[in-house]
């Protein structure tokens, strides 16, 4: 290999590792030097046969939380109520979305869900959505899809620091600071962000004898985030760490017709990840160890719940490249220990997973196949597999196909809960899913058909003693289609980018072990059949306008379609103006532009039109 190609390869590795490795970029590079095998993240294999997309940074920088971001944008349905916000990919349930931070699962060990309202979006370099099952890559929970929060090193930044000050209606104040120290060999950056909001918006309580105007009470929230990323590169090594300290506090609001037990909740976490990577000509070796601790506390007038989690995640990934074949082999060991005042003793589990993935490229045909085996002491997980391909039918037309077996493990609460009229069940089986999907991509349009059959669905039901117990009770079949369209145009210095997405989802109970179950063959509660979103970015001179429209179709609030919530159309507008001074900019965001009164969850109010102003200063 000539030294020239070697340099190109090294550059490429660095670019792929440290730049935002989004699909478009990877493709561009591939076109430049097609003869060289490329090393990429194993998680990106999901692109073969399925879809991965990176959310526009205009949205991630202007969103209060992940919940806020995903509710307005893309095909995911987000259900928000009280202190919980959960996402629903393709008609799946809340625990069927895996949230990952630099490859480390963040879903709560106790519930299996990720509460999207406590995750910020503005401290990450990119937020990616993977629709479809990918348990072979990410393990338990990745049935409906996964959300990746990544911190990659951005070496091409034109500035070293950003100061942001945001203030908005309902007592929102947010301050954030970013600074990076960069040289040839290493990069250190840190983000600091602090925000709070009274969240005391007005709404009309339509559930009372007179439709009275009320103010949402007891809904204050505050968040503190500290994130540090360090990477050191030397020859064929790279190593570093990520550290994320997160403190969240909130008062838990209740629905407009329910008594308020004045609950408050703390979600505190310290998350660390260390990595060591070694690159050889055709090999790479990656060692990762992450340690996460989480403290959860919930206090109401009468309920007091404490949870303390310690989570070790170690992985070894070996990647070997042949001419047209890329192979990945990996081992992943996890130790999870949860203390809860609702468990009879500290629940401690070890989990070992081994996996292998192949990627093969032959002319216009890219194929991938993966196998994963997880060994767990309480339940057994069958061998998981996935197959996917991208076939370039012509230069404009790509055909994608993916078939995979995925699972969701019972959560610690499902297994070990004891108290307050409920009891866990250690005989639970994991939920198993068979996913298949196919996509046609023609120029800027993509159309997908998907099917997702989930068996052994876990439901909590009262037993004959009226004690709530989880059981594997139902089978759910979700299927539907997704349409995505991107439009770009530049006319007279006016830059227009528009992204449109529409999802059609039928998600029905296919089988139930409950006697006389009226939900048989009915749409799942809170899964809209129609969801559409449209993002329009308009750039000219120093102005940038973003209009985000989302249409959430009618949802049923019960599993037998006996009652429903009306559909709603919400628009948010972001206006950005670049000042001449030090690349400073001002953002004005108007949420719920049309001042619609709507409910995402029955009897939980949502705010009307409100304004957020943000000032950015770069240096």
């Amino acid at each position, binding site marked *: 290999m000539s030294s020239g190609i070697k340099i190109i390869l090294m550059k490429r590795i660095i670019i792929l590792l440290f730049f935002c490795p989004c699909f478009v970029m990877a493709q561009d590079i591939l076109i430049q030097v097609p003869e060289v095998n490329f090393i990429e993240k194993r998680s990106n294999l999901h692109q073969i046969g399925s879809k991965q997309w990176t959310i526009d940074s205009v949205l991630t920088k202007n969103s209060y939380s992940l919940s806020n971001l995903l509710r307005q944008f893309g095909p995911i349905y987000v259900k928000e109520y*009280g202190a919980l916000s959960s996402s629903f990919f393709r008609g799946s349930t809340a625990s069927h979305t895996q949230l990952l931070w630099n490859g480390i699962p963040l879903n709560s060990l106790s519930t299996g869900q990720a509460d999207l309202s406590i995750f910020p979006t503005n401290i990450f370099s990119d937020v990616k959505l993977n629709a479809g099952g990918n348990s072979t890559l990410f393990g338990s929970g990745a049935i409906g899809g996964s959300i990746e929060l990544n911190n990659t090193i951005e070496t091409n930044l034109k500035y070293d620091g950003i100061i942001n000050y945001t203030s908005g209606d309902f007592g929102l104040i947010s301050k954030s600071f970013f600074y990076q120290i960069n040289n040839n060999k290493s990069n250190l950056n840190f983000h600091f962000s602090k925000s709070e909001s009274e969240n005391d918006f007005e709404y009309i309580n*339509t*559930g*009372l*004898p007179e439709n009275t105007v009320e103010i949402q009470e007891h809904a204050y929230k505050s968040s503190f985030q500290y994130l540090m990323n360090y990477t050191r590169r030397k020859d064929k090594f790279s190593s570093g760490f990520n550290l994320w300290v997160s403190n969240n506090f909130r008062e838990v609001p209740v*629905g407009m*017709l*329910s*008594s308020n*037990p004045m609950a408050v909740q703390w979600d505190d976490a310290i998350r660390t990840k260390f990595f060591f990577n070694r690159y050889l000509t055709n090999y790479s070796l990656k060692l990762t160890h992450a340690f996460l601790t989480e403290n959860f506390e919930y206090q109401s*007038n*009468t*309920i007091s719940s404490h949870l303390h989690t310690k989570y070790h995640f170690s992985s070894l990934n070996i990647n070997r490249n042949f001419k047209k074949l890329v192979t990945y082999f990996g081992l992943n060991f996890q130790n999870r220990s949860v203390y809860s005042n609702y468990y*009879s*003793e500290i629940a401690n589990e070890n989990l070992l997973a081994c996996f292998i993935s192949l990627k093969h490229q032959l002319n216009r045909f890219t194929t991938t196949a993966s196998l994963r085996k997880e060994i767990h002491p309480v339940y057994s997980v069958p061998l998981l597999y996935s197959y996917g391909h991208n076939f370039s039918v012509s230069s404009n037309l790509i055909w994608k196909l993916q078939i995979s077996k995925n699972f969701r493990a019972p959560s610690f609460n499902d297994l070990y809960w*004891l108290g*307050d*009229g409920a*009891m*866990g*069940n*250690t005989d639970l089986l994991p939920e198993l899913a068979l996913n298949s999907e196919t996509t046609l991509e023609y120029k800027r349009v993509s159309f997908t058909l998907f099917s997702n059959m989930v068996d052994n669905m876990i*439901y909590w039901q*009262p037993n*004959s*003693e*009226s*004690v709530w117990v989880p059981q594997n009770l139902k089978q759910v079949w979700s299927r539907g289609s997704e349409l995505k369209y991107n439009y770009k145009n530049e*006319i*007279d*210095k*006016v830059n*227009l980018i528009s992204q449109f997405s529409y999802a059609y989802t039928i998600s029905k109970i296919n089988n139930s072990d*409950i*006697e*006389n*179950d*009226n*939900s048989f063959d009915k749409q799942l509660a809170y899964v809209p059949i129609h969801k*559409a979103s*449209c993002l*329009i970015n*308009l750039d*000219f001179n120093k102005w940038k306008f973003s*209009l985000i*429209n989302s*249409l959430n179709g009618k949802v049923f*609030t*019960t*599993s*037998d379609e*006996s*009652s429903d919530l*009306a559909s*709603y*159309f919400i*628009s948010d507008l972001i206006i950005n103006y670049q000042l001449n001074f030090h690349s400073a900019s001002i953002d004005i965001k108007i949420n719920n532009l*049309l001042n619609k009164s709507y409910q995402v969850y*029955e*009897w939980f109010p949502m705010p009307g039109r409100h304004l957020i102003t943000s000032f950015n200063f770069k240096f």
Partner: protein
Amino acid sequence: MKTSKTINKLIIFFITFTLVSCTKDYPEPLIPISEKYDDGIFVTCEGNFNSANGSLSFISDDGVVENNIFNSVNGFPLGDIVQSITIIDTTAYIVVNNSGKVVVADAGTMEYISEISVTTPDHMTAISNDVAYVSDWNDFSENGFVHVIDLKSNEITNSIQVGHQPGEILYSNGYVFVIESGVWPDAGNSISVINVESETIVENIIVAANPINMALNENILWVLSKGETGYDENFQEISVTPGSLTSINTTSLQVDNVIELHEGKIPRSLVCNDNLLYFRNGQSIFSQSVDASELNAIEIITGNFNNEIICYDDHIYSAYVPSYDQSGEVYKFSTNGVLENTFQVGIAPGNFGF
């Protein structure tokens, strides 16, 4: 000029998208005002906790079910966890547990009259047409309350502290009896007795573990206890005590007799009609004479029900909750166990009232 054209086009595009996506406003349903709820039985449908989708169903004597009647008449819902209904004279008192209120409505038309604020109410009983007692979990805390309510002003005149999670409440011979049911795994095992003259607790009667329902036959108060299942730390059953019936003399406040029920089943719901006690044990409804001093029950119905039963108009009505996110069912049986009708009602039917 070209730029402004483009901008115009874009504005039109925005507006079109906005208009196309607007949802239609449907007219409000017509409010029936002539409906009478005199001849039939009310079913309280709890709804799901924190979803505020509790409702009231009505099954008329000629076998017609009407759901969500309170909302249809008044245009607003009852609230979160519609626990029970008590009819006093011509007024309905609907206990809405997690909305912290007792809704007062006309029992004949279901028109809203007023409401009484109570922290976490469970059941209500009248001692006269002017005074009623309501049990209150007091926000799930260790000590509940029984409140004395003046029905003229709909105000609480006195609050008496009782044990953990007070449930069913009954009046007899100058005493109000209230079950202290506790919350699993902390089983309750007592009945507090309140003298209505002094409005104080005069007795605390110990019964078998997990008392759940009461029924009155002349001077005898029957208490149904669920019994107790013990678990070790791996959730393996280690001990089971069967359910039981305790009879209490409401004059002497002494326990007359304790009748142990069939083992291996969890009893729930007790009513008394025509000198017969009807109770559900597991999936079966049994009847037994009030005079029997030991278990002598006849299984009259076996079926698919998991909530309360009631005797009304010489029939047995039984409620079934498939799950807390869908419509429940009520079955109507003749007293010898023949299924006469099935009604689809609101979410989680729990209690009855007439």
